[in-house]
């Protein structure tokens, strides 16, 4: 193909870890001629990059923060693309017995009751915020020696949990792609409370004239289109599908 036009998009680690990008990017390049460069960072940092105009668009999953971002005028609009779900991971023998829990809140209560080691991202990321909302939904203020906020990314949290043989909450994509499972297993999933919505926000060209708003829009069109739907819904790791396409065509 002809020389590609280049745009940059900040994405969160969990998206990158899913491996979906490796499927989408070549297709985008093929269909639109856009070479998307992914800058992989934490949610907060991704939004910060957008606010500074250092990327042309962001793809994140932290509703409240996204809305703040829009309210401040940093982005033009928010477009939901797809979702996956969070899962609770823990030691295979499940000392807190969360596998049989009715709901996510119930599972967390059991962990707290058993004082079983729980690794938290503790980094204000989308995943971390979700985890905190689940705790508060369960009516628990997690604290004490069993609760370990590590202040790091998803991969680091999983590696830590794996080494400690602790419980941890992860997005399904990161978990499936995670290579250092040792004794960990997926113990709880499926509660709609665990939904994880990804949204696409182009950076506001009014604030940053140099951003490639044109490319950002073309990319958005592709992301909500049929090819994207097919690829996203069809993406599987170990036979499991990870993402559900839920963009609404205008």
């Amino acid at each position: 193909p002809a020389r590609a036009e280049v745009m940059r998009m900040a994405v969160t680690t969990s998206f990158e870890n899913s491996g979906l990008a490796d499927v989408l990017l070549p297709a985008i390049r093929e269909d639109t001629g856009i070479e998307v460069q992914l800058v992989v960072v934490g949610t907060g940092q991704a939004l910060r990059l957008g606010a500074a105009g250092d990327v042309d668009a962001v793809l994140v999953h932290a509703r409240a923060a996204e809305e703040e971002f829009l309210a401040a005028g940093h982005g033009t609009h928010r477009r939901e693309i797809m979702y996956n779900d969070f899962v609770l991971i823990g030691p295979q023998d499940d000392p807190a017995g969360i596998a049989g829990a009715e709901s996510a809140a119930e599972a967390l209560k059991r962990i707290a009751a058993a004082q079983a080691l729980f690794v938290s991202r503790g980094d204000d990321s989308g995943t971390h915020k979700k985890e905190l909302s689940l705790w508060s939904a369960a009516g628990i203020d997690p604290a004490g020696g069993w609760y370990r906020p590590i202040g790091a990314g998803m991969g680091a949290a999983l590696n830590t949990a794996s080494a400690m043989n602790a419980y941890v909450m992860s997005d399904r994509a990161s978990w499936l792609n995670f290579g250092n499972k040792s004794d960990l297993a997926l113990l709880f999933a499926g509660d709609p409370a665990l939904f994880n919505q990804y949204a696409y926000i182009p950076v506001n060209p009014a604030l940053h004239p140099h951003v490639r708003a044109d490319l950002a829009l073309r990319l958005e069109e592709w992301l909500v289109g049929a090819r994207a739907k097919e690829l996203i819904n069809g993406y599987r790791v170990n036979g499991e599908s990870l993402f559900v396409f839920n963009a609404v065509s205008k």
Partner: protein
Amino acid sequence: MDSILQGLGQAFWLIITFDPDLYEIIAMSLRVSLSAVLVASAIGLPLGAWLAVNRFRWRRTTIAVLNALMGLPPVVVGLFVYLLLSRSGPFGVLGLLFTPSAMIIAQVIIITPLIASISHQAIRDLWAEYHDLLISMNATRGQRIRALLWDGRRALLTATLAGFGRAIGEVGAIMIVGGSIEHSTRVLTTAIALETSKGNLEFALGLGVVLIALAVAVNMTIHGLSGTERAPAW
């Protein structure tokens, strides 16, 4: 530019408000780095001297490897230590992972080559000066090394301080083996990385300034105590 100034302001604010969390983190940083420097110096300084004093077949290779190891990527070291200390690893039973000890071990691995390499260079020059005398006096290998370490102590300080600087500014390895667990293994650098990923860049920069100030203070104190750069070369 604004952000940078804000960062400086944050640093100042943090220090004067005597934030207890901050002081806890600083204490952990110092504890880990100073311990690592002590251990690494105890290994690296004699090793540097030994390499300066001995001529053996693989000397050049050893020195080249040592120089290369100076740049040992922290992440790799972290991984390596993680694999050794993890429950399924050979030293898993010790239960050291995610403790300050694990962080010290990782840092020792990172800074020992640095200390050994810089001290080797300093000692090599001194050895060129003392060579004939010490050989003539029939000093044993150990005596030679001791004389060089003692008489070259000022220059060796640079090596040790370089090691300290590297240790206290290190993040990749201790993140993996220490885990940056709040109130337990969080140090300045991992706190900075955390704030960065949160997008709190000014706060992160503020912590960075605190860290640099700390490193400068330690350097000045030690230079002051030892009198280097004041008196002549020895």
